[in-house]
């Protein structure tokens, strides 16, 4: 996941690398996602998470596009 200054720079990078644009989040959105995703990473009780648990975090972070889910149906 790369950091960009604007949508224009993302478009330039995608064009130069012949890649499709993925999903773009603001720093504040990624910070909220980070807290949900990583808050327990140092815990002895963390043993990884299932796809369903990961998708629940995306949902909780307000990320509803099909991009974030293995199933196309949200």
């Amino acid at each position, binding site marked *: 996941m790369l950091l960009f200054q604007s949508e224009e720079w*993302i478009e330039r990078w995608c064009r130069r690398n012949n890649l499709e644009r993925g999903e773009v989040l603001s720093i504040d959105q990624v*910070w909220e996602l980070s807290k949900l995703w*990583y808050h327990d990473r*140092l815990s002895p009780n963390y043993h990884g998470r299932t796809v369903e648990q990961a998708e629940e975090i995306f949902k909780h972070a307000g990320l509803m596009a099909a991009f974030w889910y293995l199933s196309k149906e949200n």
Partner: protein
Amino acid sequence: MTINEPLLWQVRVFIYNHFADTALPPSVEDTAKHFNIEIKEAGTLYKELHNRHAFFLEPETLMIRMANPFSGIPADFRVHVNGKTYFANCAWDMLGIPAALASRSDAVIEAVCTESNDLVQLEIRDGKVAQAAVLGGGVSGTSSLLVHFPLPFARWYDDLVFT
């Protein structure tokens, strides 16, 4: 070799605590010494944790490349917390490090913007992204900075370094 499950997860915790305490991954020798086990056994546990996606080894080695959000090698994303400097794997993980270390301190993050190559400094203060400054461009709000996720969740483990 049968995997000792309790020991396996104790090794994972040791590795993460080592990252948190030193900003570096422990070598397999460090880990073997800590648990008073043979290096070969520690290596087997490293490979098992790699296979279970608990962290990721450099190909064909026992060197830890990523224990997300921590990077085992220098990267464009530096996170300064409580007098230590950590490397993050990506723009998500640069925020993941202060999130993982939440109880410890505020953070200052230095990162390079892709394509424009400008250096950006972010501050995490009181649990919020307080400020972002593009060096040479003055202080800006945080809303102008963007993180691009190039691959959908379903493909994140196809090529983790690219992801």
